[in-house]
């Protein structure tokens, strides 16, 4: 029988814990910079049509490779298009790639990794073998081959990069699940007769998520780099749709007359990758201090 005072104490304690958790986030400079940085970028991408001073695709052959001015903040490219407007709109492609790649590879990788780690036996061995073999393919190359095979629409680029990154998420997920499987609450769930699927979905995955979320944040950054690389090679979303990668590629041909085109697009990519990495580092420190011991950030 709990008394009213005990109940009030428990509520207060829970509130204090929540406050402490929030404080852990707000006092982590990297996390705050990363979170605010990515929020700003999302706002720019969403507001692109209103924010951009010009249409990103309107050409003006009388005004090519113009120097930066009040009307064209970063000058114009060889087709007379406003570079600043192209970069602002380019944020949309990069963010969509980052978001959907993480969504797909996180969902698929989590399930595959959790099943492999929890099931054990031949199923685990088979899945691990497949994951290991897929990891032997450089993920950028895998994405490139898939895009080559499936065409370079935004959908197929997202799918290609997501497939290339899923084995990594699955590998991390499995290694985390292996540490969860022997714990008493899993044995308890089994003892009360829950089915394996219920245990995996309700108990294993939620407990294994923190390190996987960290990996996902960082892989959003690598996905954005991969998309930029594909765009740079001419295999990304096709011009005239602006992407940061194809702005760099188009700027390369005019690099000596207006180096600002390529330079500024590279800075946009670097900014996004830095804030995502800061966010990932921050999440690692706050969500799961134990993770610091693990393999690091490459995965």
């Amino acid at each position, binding site marked *: 029988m709990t008394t009213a005072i005990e109940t009030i104490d428990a509520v207060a304690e829970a509130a204090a814990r929540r406050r402490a958790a929030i404080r852990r986030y707000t006092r982590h400079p990297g996390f705050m910079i990363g979170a605010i940085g990515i929020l700003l970028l999302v706002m720019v991408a969403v507001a692109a049509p209103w924010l951009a001073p010009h249409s990103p695709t309107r050409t003006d052959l009388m005004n090519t490779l113009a120097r930066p001015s009040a009307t064209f903040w970063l000058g114009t490219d060889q087709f007379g298009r406003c570079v600043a407007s192209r970069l602002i709109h380019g944020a949309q492609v990069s963010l969509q790639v980052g978001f959907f790649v993480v969504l797909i590879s996180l969902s698929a990788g989590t399930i595959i990794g959790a099943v492999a780690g929890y099931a054990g036996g031949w199923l685990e061995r088979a899945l691990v073998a497949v994951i290991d073999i897929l990891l*032997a393919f450089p993920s950028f190359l895998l994405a490139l081959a898939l895009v080559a095979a499936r065409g370079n629409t935004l959908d197929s680029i997202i799918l290609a990069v997501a497939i290339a990154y899923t084995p990594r998420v699955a590998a991390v997920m499995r290694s985390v699940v292996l540490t969860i499987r022997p714990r008493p609450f899993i044995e308890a769930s089994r003892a009360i007769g829950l089915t394996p699927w219920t245990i995996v979905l309700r108990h294993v995955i939620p407990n294994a998520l923190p390190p996987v979320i960290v990996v996902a944040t960082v892989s959003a950054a690598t996905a954005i780099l991969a998309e930029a690389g594909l765009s*740079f090679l001419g295999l990304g979303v096709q011009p005239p749709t602006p992407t940061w990668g194809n702005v760099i590629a188009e700027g390369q041909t005019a690099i000596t007359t207006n180096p600002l085109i390529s330079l500024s697009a*590279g800075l946009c990519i670097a900014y996004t*990758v830095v804030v995502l990495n800061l966010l990932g580092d921050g999440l690692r420190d706050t969500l799961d201090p134990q993770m610091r011991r693990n393999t690091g950030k490459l995965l």
Partner: protein
Amino acid sequence: MVFYIARCAGQFAVALVGIVTVAFFLMRAIPGDPALYMLGDFATPEALATLRARLGLDLPVWQQYGIFLARALQGDLGMSVVTGEPALAEILASVPSSASLAVAGMAIAIAVGVPLGVIAAVRQGSVVDVAVMLIALLGISFPVFWVGITAILLLSHALGLFPALGATSEPGFWKGLHHLALPALVLGLSVAAYIARLTRSAMLEVLGQDHIRVARAMGVPEWRIVWKLALRNALVPVLAVIGVTFAWSLGNAILVEAVFSRPGLGSTILKAVLARDYQLLQAGVLVLAAAVVLLNTVLDLLYGAIDPRLRQQ
């Protein structure tokens, strides 16, 4: 040790069959008719049928797979649809150029990344640590092709230190090295950033262990603790890092080759993609994956040499 080597060789063989299998199904995952893709929309039905028969596309999938696997393990990866030459030969011809870039890049990456990671770990929390980690963060954040363009702009156009092209047809070792230097530097520094970050975390873990504390208590000089005791124990994770980054650096090498117009696997693969030469693309993907598997096998052997415990498992 003999048993250990045999096991590594066995794993290598299994992995090789695995990547051939993945490469096969990767190309079969193309929706629609590969023959139609290769010949384009205006192909005549006869041409399509001929190509289909030549590629074995009229057989059931499992039979196609069996033939493909048997041929691949004998080194036959089909013919390039564009040139009619054996695909594997065409890919292997571009390997030396890419291999020299990858090896030079990895050498720079290890020479820069490992010491920086160790120093950052030893001085954890100091200005040096923060500076190294900040540089490493920037190093992994800028796209490698952008770094390449910027390097050309600064070091070739403005300062004239290096040629802007990553290769030359002129003979001579030093000439070739001069052209290789800038691409290798760009590739190496991007990988060095990863290696530094991961070496730091591996070293931090080792430095926190009891045997290091005991060595300190016994008055072993600090340089000995760091560079001998700790680094040797951190070497297995560091080697693992090098293995992981190698696959990643091969992906980057494609971009670096494109920036510096350097011939190699990257340009051959790109050429295959643009010409829809799927046989050639498939061979390229296979060779690169095989290179990664080979490196991982060599690393496995090295782990065994470094850490006797791993041999006995």
